[in-house]
């Protein structure tokens, strides 16, 4: 399946992926309207400084521990292999946060449920916004074997 991959060699630490993610998942059509004056809660997080940096988001593991451990069945792999969250079912127990070896699942902004990267399948971005918005191809969306 196509996944998002991050190559730290090319990450500039510009954090634009975080903003693109937050915008894509804001449901708004204007970035300024969506993000100005707000604290963002992106599903992708950049670690590091301007020397070494990289973004981390869901790896969409085929053997996903978060899915296996989910107590409500809110997390599942869809038919394309995307690990998706049904926030309607999620009760916010955070077992997935306990389980994810990459630290890629985080509480939603109000902490009532969790959020995670769903490859922008759940918004209007069309393709992963972080990939589109990365100025240096440090984040790519592709098939790897």
């Amino acid at each position, binding site marked *: 399946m196509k*996944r998002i991959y991050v190559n730290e060699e090319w990450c500039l630490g510009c954090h634009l992926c975080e903003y693109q993610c937050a915008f894509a998942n804001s449901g708004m059509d204007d970035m300024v309207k969506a993000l100005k004056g707000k604290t963002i809660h992106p599903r992708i997080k950049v670690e590091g400084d301007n020397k070494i940096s990289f973004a981390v988001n869901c790896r969409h593991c085929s053997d996903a521990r978060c899915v296996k451990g989910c107590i409500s069945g809110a997390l599942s792999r869809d038919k394309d292999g995307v690990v998706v969250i049904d926030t309607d079912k999620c009760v916010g127990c955070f077992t997935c946060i*306990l389980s994810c070896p990459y630290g890629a699942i985080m509480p939603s902004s109000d902490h009532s449920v969790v959020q995670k990267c769903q490859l922008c399948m759940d918004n209007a971005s069309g393709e992963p916004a972080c990939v589109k918005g990365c100025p240096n191809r440090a984040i790519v969306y592709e098939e790897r074997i």
Partner: protein
Amino acid sequence: MKYDYLIIGNSIAAVGCIEGIRENDNEGSICVVTDENYRVYGRPLISYYLWNKTTEKKMLSYRPDNFYKKNDVELMLGTRAEKINTEKKTVSLSGGSEIGYGKLLIAAGSSPFVPPMKGLDGVEKKFSFMTLDDAKALAEAIDKDSRVLIVGAGLIGLKCAEGISDRAGSLTVVDLANRILPSILDEKGSAIVRKHIERRGVKFYLNDSVAEFKDGTATLASGKKIDYDAVVIAVGVRPNTALAADAGGEVNRGIATDLKCATTIPDVYAAGDCAECLNSITGKSQVLALLPNAYMMGHAAGVNMSGGEELYDDAIPMNAIGFWGLHIITAGDYEGEAYVKREGIKYKKLVTADNNLRGFILIDDIERAGIYTRLVREKTPLDEIDFEAIKERPQEMAFSRAVRKDDLGGVK
């Protein structure tokens, strides 16, 4: 009637087993026998159900509606497995029928443990807190004025307290131990959480126990008296091992299994709360009555039952739990050198031993906790990572470049 795969119990381990089987075998017939009358649901959800964080309908959609159909599973509700006949490879069911199996999984779960307490039999409204029916019955029995006494300050008792906090008048918790959540928290952590819960109006009587229930009043060993309208017994659970024991299988606290989740009885496997598995930290077998463990063990059993091989060898104790918005994540055990960081309500304890992270406690500081879990589970040598950095906060940066490259660029 004979099924290639017969599963006793219809909880998470059963689902893991079904999904494990279907990874290898799309043809073999599967039957699930359960004495409950529900589709599968996550038992820990019952407190959220009571707290109106979820509904029965959502609870029962742990797997999609077509789950049994899609996986071609015969589901026999309200049917109890009474006996395993190992010679004939059949299971006798309540109602007298008998069905055969090729491979059998015992995922019978556990039962609430109710210690002998004086006067308990006379308590009209007394409940366990394990099943959806328990939760429904409890909800039915209490109202805004009810004084509820919960015996047991462990995970079940306290989640129950949270669950009914908006439905009951007052909540009192009694426990023999000197602290709450003793199975997952150290004293400091326990104190923090206790304070937080107490702020919600829950009263604790620790180092104490009920000496007698009588006429709506519980008299504690210390002599204190607590009036109640309903009692919840949540002192613990006991694995349901009788089926295996009667059939001659080895049983300790739980049903003994090997790394393939097989019992000592040929073609019989066990998983979930009824079974023991290897705690990869201590190297000892124990019952890990945790939902993720049930799934993974059931899954491994299913794979092995259907001709594949999956060793269940990386089980660790771990817990994610929250009370009124305060989130706690713990894993492993706490035998070793501790690094502790406390900042107000935030509490972090990392326990190291033999160049490994052996366990941790995180209270209100759970961000990316899975990275710590990973260190515990994978026994990552700490001198291969930047432990100082990761102590500060869980991060990929603490791993070597090569590990990061695989984490972020490899196919997972």
